[in-house]
């Protein structure tokens, strides 16, 4: 296969001559000799096209694609309609980088506008930005928005039941800044409201709560917004957007900001991403929203047109006064979300959410009745629940994999501190069930678990 060959020898000679350099050594004369690489780069030499195909096929074959997936933990195996791939595959979208001369890219701006409108409809909030990198950065930006909105605030509270990765990114994001991050304790798998009550007070910018939370449980959000607002703080809710097809929206709960990962709506559960973060807020915080916002307008002939309405927080506008260093968005992934939501529609989304929940509850119920595993499902959950095994999780997961199942995520690896109901973290797995799972797959899962735990 050809190595990358951006310039021919002739190109090089012409360019060197143009700048008056005798040769490459002469061109790099200003780079101190001790900084120059004296040996070839330590990478394999080039291979033929056939060899590369062979190598990549071998790597691809190492993936296990036949197993039935019950993995979740923030990334879910939902059905993705073919329309998503078809639209994303259009080169006008997938080759485009961020529109610097924004208004010339009407298609991209319209796609962003549609995405924003759909996110607003889902979250029950008035304004959405054009998207962020992922759910964790969205939570960080929500916290920054709150810190900048609530005067004299320095403290951000978050529930321990947040996704552990979000908690870690929050810690990284605010390290070195004069911001106090405080974790609200978890009791029986959900946020401890008494602990919250103790920690809320003057100087608190926000409470960040995730529902459905990392264990899959629904947090009780009743009266939460009132309590948080009484302390002068904002309520930030992180929610799986697909769950909002069936559950009350953050806006309806009184949240000021909704933030989260939109992977469940149209993006595959690849290893590590890419995903996309969504961020929506009440109108009052429009000017505090980081990133950019596309808007609908009319051109000089009165025709519908799209514009980059606001990028109020970005550094080229705010310079040293910028409150966020987000200067981009996740346009292609956001487009996937927009196409997904437009394809399934309000009914389809509700159906996906309800089916996922119904199948998850069916599986939990049968596992509890017919196997030695104990679903920790005493409180409301959406499509994911912790399952306590009679012994260490690792060997059971391995046996299940041999039976053709990715049976769940070991809690110990991600968040041992969240093990609910006195369970030992090493014995708990998180089991996620989406609308894609069939009755037959669920029944086989139960049978396999029964055999393995005999």
């Amino acid at each position, binding site marked *: 296969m050809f190595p990358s060959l951006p310039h021919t020898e002739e190109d090089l000679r012409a360019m060197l001559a143009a700048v008056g350099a005798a040769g490459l050594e002469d061109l790099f004369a200003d780079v101190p000799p001790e900084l120059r690489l004296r040996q070839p780069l330590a990478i394999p030499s080039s291979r033929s096209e056939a060899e590369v195909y062979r190598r990549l096929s071998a790597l691809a074959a190492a993936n296990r694609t036949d197993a039935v997936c019950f993995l979740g933990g923030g990334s879910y195996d939902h059905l993705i309609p073919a329309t998503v791939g078809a639209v994303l595959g259009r080169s006008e979208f997938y080759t485009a980088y961020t529109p610097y001369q924004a208004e010339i890219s009407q298609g991209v701006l319209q796609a962003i506008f549609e995405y924003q409108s759909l996110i607003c409809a889902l979250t029950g909030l008035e304004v959405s930005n054009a998207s962020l990198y992922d759910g964790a950065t969205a939570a960080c930006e929500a916290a920054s928005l709150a810190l900048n909105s609530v*005067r004299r605030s320095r403290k951000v509270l978050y529930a321990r039941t947040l996704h552990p990765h979000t908690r870690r990114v929050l810690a990284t994001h605010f390290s070195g800044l004069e911001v106090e991050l405080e974790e609200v304790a978890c009791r029986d798998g959900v946020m401890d409201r008494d602990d919250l009550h103790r920690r809320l007070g003057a100087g608190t910018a926000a409470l960040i709560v995730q529902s459905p939370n990392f264990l899959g449980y629904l947090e009780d959000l009743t009266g939460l917004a009132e309590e948080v607002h009484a302390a002068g703080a904002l309520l930030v809710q992180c929610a799986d957007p697909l769950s909002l097809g069936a559950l009350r929206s953050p806006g309806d709960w009184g949240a000021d900001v909704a933030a989260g990962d939109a992977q469940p709506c149209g993006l595959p559960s690849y290893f590590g991403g890419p995903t996309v973060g969504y961020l929506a807020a009440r109108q009052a915080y429009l*000017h505090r929203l980081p990133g950019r916002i596309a808007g609908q307008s009319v051109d000089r002939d009165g025709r519908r047109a799209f514009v980059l309405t606001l990028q*109020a927080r970005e550094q080229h*506008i*705010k*310079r040293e*006064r910028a409150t966020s260093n987000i200067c981009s968005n996740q346009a292609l992934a956001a487009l996937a979300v927009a196409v997904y939501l437009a394809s399934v529609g309000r009914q389809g989304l509700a159906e996906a959410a309800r089916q996922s929940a119904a199948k998850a509850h069916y599986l939990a119920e049968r596992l509890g009745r017919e196997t030695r595993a104990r679903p920790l499902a005493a409180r409301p959950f959406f499509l994911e629940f912790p399952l306590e095994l009679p012994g260490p999780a690792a060997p059971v997961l391995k046996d299940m994999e041999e039976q053709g199942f990715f049976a769940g995520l070991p809690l110990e690896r991600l968040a041992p501190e969240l093990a609910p109901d006195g369970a030992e973290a090493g014995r708990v797995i998180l089991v996620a069930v989406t609308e894609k799972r069939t009755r037959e797959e669920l029944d086989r899962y139960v049978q396999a678990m029964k055999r393995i735990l005999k």
Partner: protein
Amino acid sequence: MVTPKELKYARTHEWVRVEGELAFVGITDYAQESLGDIVYVEPPEAGQTVKQGEEVATIESVKAASPIYAPVSGQVERLNPLLEKTPELINQKPYEAFLFVVRLSSPPAGLLDAAAYESHVEQEKAAH
């Protein structure tokens, strides 16, 4: 550049109109002209105590975001409600579109009259 004689000015380009114990605060014609189209005003909080020289608000234009400094000391009595929806009033009528009103805690001091402000602006222009 319009510089009404009856107003007082800060070197940071705010104007002040004193009415008894109240001081109306806005930005000068020169300031709005330099900023360009104003798209958003982030005002102080009503009731907030402000000290002369302290940064209390931000004006965002299509070009940049600029801090606004309190030209007098006291407590913010009220804001200009029109600016929330129509910040462009500052461009159109800079001396009517006040940003906020301060209940003075002490008489204004260290402000310039119109002539002194105009020569201050000329000096700033020359320095650039």
